[in-house]
């Protein structure tokens, strides 16, 4: 089956892949796809054009990959519909469309079997040689794609292509050659830890769930990704939906569950569509249903769509929501693996964790545990966003330093900025300053710094960022997303936000920092779930590493980063102002006056500090003080 499927994947015809995950679509990939197809039809070419997922290089999108028989695979970046004729032309001539070419791949990796299938036969054409191989493209060089193994390589709507890449082989192996105990043992030995935030050892979770007495048992995939700026789960589902399903099949067999749930955000319509289709295909091929692979194991999966509450990513709230109740957490003194969904043993892991499972089974625990650090094995996908040149999803082996991720892969800070901090772990993670940039990405090391791995959000900030304002931003998010059940979280996040807002708006008082500290202690100690318990992290880490900024705001009513509007003023430097009057035209409040060709002035009483004058000025004469 795999051989025939593999023929479908690369069948000797020229094949064009267009990255059409949500990130690609947002940059116009659909128009590129249509333009390419139009060209192909107009020229009546024997050429396949397929949709594929995102390979992570979101800053290069729309991305188009071209495989010509016998030649290296070429990646084209930032392709526009206008490029379509030229690109198709170059394909028909067997050449490289140099304008957009950014990298070449010599061989297609088949991660599950440790095989590589070379695209190329014979020598590289000189013009192909001019395109740098991925191993020399800084963004890809240090990455290792396990979770994202198929993203960008297969058509996510084709189960054949997934099978061609070794898909469902791990499930077949697990169900027909391994006992549940052997599987759990392999997962334990691999050192795989939950990728959703907590970092709990996956094997131990499975084992406890398997050993729980009650029946039936459930396996659940948490695809309710809610961290601002994090979208790795969405991308994996959109690019490779079967990998998560295969993980669930293996897990259900190991744990002894016959029903699985995928709880996915309604805000991810494409992901929902992809999962639906993938489930249907898996059912048709007998990978789901009764007596899977003749093993006697029955298993079905249902989709539930989350309605957009951040707290529903918390396991007990998610299960309450699955049951049709209000999505609010409960105390977990009895763990969900013992008493979860409908008070039955339930094993919940997130998309990336389930997606890693087939790899562990196929390649073996030893191989997997050879990657990463002492306490954190394998790779982790991060969504690298913010003030960084290469915005996108990066998957790196655990243990790579933050500096390597941000400077090498991320390409550093855009011009005019200096690195100030990186916020890891989503809204309730922490801000890590430059002095800790050499910290390896590892569950425990990030926790030591007061931050966390979380689901893998990585927001880079430069020196134009006010850390008090950052803390305020995250607390505003958490205050809105607190379910409101317990007092420390509901009232605490709100009071923290009040205090931070006061500080940012020049109403900070002596004692505020102490009060923030007292609140944080109570929230960490007293909150019902991890949302409240980790909500103070943005405040605690910014206080710890950027305490001077808080003091400048409170004591001197000064915002060192010149961000907090109440604490800054716009002024025109008379030495550099040429009196061109552009700022006068830009000012919505008529706050700027002056004679033509004479230095102008801003009336502070009228100025609303919108900054439009500074944007309009061509001589950098408008200063923030």
């Amino acid at each position, binding site marked *: 089956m795999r051989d025939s499927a593999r023929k479908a994947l690369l069948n000797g015809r020229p094949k064009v892949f267009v990255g059409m995950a949500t990130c690609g679509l947002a940059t116009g990939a659909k128009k590129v796809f249509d333009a390419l197809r139009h060209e192909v039809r107009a020229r009546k070419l024997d050429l396949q054009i397929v949709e594929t997922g995102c390979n992570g290089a979101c800053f290069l999108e729309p991305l188009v990959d071209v495989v010509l028989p016998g030649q290296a695979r070429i990646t084209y970046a930032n392709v526009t519909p206008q490029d379509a004729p030229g690109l198709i032309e170059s394909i028909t001539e067997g050449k490289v469309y140099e304008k957009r070419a950014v990298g070449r791949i010599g061989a297609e990796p088949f991660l599950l079997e440790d095989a590589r299938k070379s695209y190329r036969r014979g020598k590289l054409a000189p013009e192909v040689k001019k395109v740098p191989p991925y191993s020399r493209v800084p963004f890809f060089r240090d990455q290792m794609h396990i979770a994202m193994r198929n993203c960008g390589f297969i058509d996510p709507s084709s189960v054949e292509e997934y099978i061609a890449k070794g898909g469902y082989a791990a499930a077949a192996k697990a169900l027909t050659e391994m006992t549940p105990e052997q599987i759990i043992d392999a997962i334990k030995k691999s050192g795989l830890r939950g990728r959703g935030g907590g970092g709990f050892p996956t094997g131990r979770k499975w084992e406890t769930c398997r050993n729980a007495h009650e029946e039936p048992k459930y396996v659940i995939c948490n695809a309710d990704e809610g961290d601002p700026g994090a979208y790795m789960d969405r991308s994996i589902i959109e690019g490779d939906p079967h990998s998560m399903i295969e993980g669930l099949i293996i897990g259900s067999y190991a744990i002894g569950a016959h029903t699985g749930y995928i709880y996915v955000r309604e805000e991810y319509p494409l992901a929902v569509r992809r999962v639906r289709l993938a489930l249907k295909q898996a059912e048709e091929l007998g990978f789901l249903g009764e007596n899977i692979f003749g093993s006697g194991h029955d298993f079905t999966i249902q989709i539930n769509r989350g309605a957009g*509450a951040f*707290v529903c990513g918390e396991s007990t709230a998610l299960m309450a929501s699955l049951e049709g109740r*209000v999505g609010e957490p*409960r*105390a977990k*003194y*009895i763990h969900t693996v013992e008493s979860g969904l409908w008070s039955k043993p339930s094993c919940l892991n997130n998309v990336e964790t389930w997606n890693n499972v087939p790899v562990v089974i196929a390649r073996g625990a030893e191989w997997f545990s050879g990657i990463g650090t002492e306490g954190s094995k394998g790779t982790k996908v991060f969504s690298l966003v913010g003030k960084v040149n290469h915005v996108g999803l990066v998957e790196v082996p655990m243990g790579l330093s933050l500096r390597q991720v941000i400077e090498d892969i991320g390409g550093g800070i855009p011009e005019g900025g200096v690195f100030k901090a990186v916020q890891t772990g989503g809204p309730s993670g922490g801000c890590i300053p430059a002095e800790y940039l050499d910290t390896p990405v590892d569950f425990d090391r990030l926790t030591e710094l007061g931050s966390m791995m979380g689901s893998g959000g990585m927001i880079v900030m430069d020196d134009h960022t006010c850390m008090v304002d950052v803390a305020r931003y995250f607390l505003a998010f958490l*205050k*809105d*997303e*607190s*379910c*409101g*059940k*317990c*007092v*420390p979280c*509901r*009232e*605490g*996040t*709100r*009071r923290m936000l*009040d205090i931070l807002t006061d500080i940012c708006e020049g109403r900070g008082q002596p*004692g505020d920092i102490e*009060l923030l500290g*007292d*609140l944080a*202690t*109570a929230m960490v*100690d*007293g*909150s*019902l779930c991890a949302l409240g318990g980790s909500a103070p992290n943005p405040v605690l880490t910014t206080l710890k590493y950027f305490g001077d900024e808080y003091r400048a705001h409170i004591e001197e009513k000064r915002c060192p980063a010149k961000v907090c509007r109440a604490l800054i003023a716009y002024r025109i430097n008379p030495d550099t102002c040429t009196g061109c009057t552009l700022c006068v035209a830009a000012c919505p409040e008529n706050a700027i006056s002056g004679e033509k060709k004479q230095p102008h002035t801003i009336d502070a009483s009228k100025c609303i500090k919108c900054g439009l004058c500074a944007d309009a000025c061509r001589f950098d004469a408008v200063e923030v003080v």
Partner: protein
Amino acid sequence: MEEKEVEFTIDGQPVRARPGETVLSVATREGIPIPALCHHEAVSPYGACRLCAVEVFWGKRSKLVTSCIYIPYENDRVETNNPRVRQLRRMVLELLLARCPNVEVIRDLAREYGADQPRFRTDATADTERCILCGLCVRVCAEVVGQYAIGYANRGMERVIATPFADHAEECVGCGACVFVCPTDALHYEDIDGQRIMKELKTTVPLLACRVCGRAFATEKQVERIRERLNLPDELAETCPACRGSQFRGVMEEALGLIPSTTSQKA
């Protein structure tokens, strides 16, 4: 969950918990005071107010748990009033007091824990706000009355106790259990002109007059529910407790299964 009795200590005192019994329940039985606002023995624990937090030690480790939910393990050492516990309660009370400065029970507790000088600014709504969202009303309505007439709406600070669509609740029988169980006097009802008005719940339920004395003694829906559950004859159900006495003793005892059935239709 432990299947047998569990031995552990509370503040150094050896105690025993019955299978499935919480620390708060054991402490209450043993006369060890632990404050709690969202707990009531008639309904399932919820763990929302966090006032009943206690610190549990096992080996060298410890953590704060809510005693209304936490079921102790053998050899747990529970401390109900140490500095860490008091610090959490103080902050919880400081937060609650800032929300509802005019609620007596919170003011008293805040004074006890030295939290009566809140450092937070007072809200515009603080004068009239009495609800701390403990959820006792919601639970009593669902679990004891069985009506599910009220629930929570919105989330976070916007969260409120509300009837469906914040309008007259068809499900509400006007029994007043929610008013009775509310620890902060946030819910009220008033009987005016043959109607029971549940002010905060925007619900009005007609009252029923006693067949004998003519005095309104319960709501129509309430009587209806009781009649359904106990299979009472109309005359008995629609007579107030004061008038019921001698006239209906036989019928009542029969209905409640206290004496064997006679064929009496009318007393």
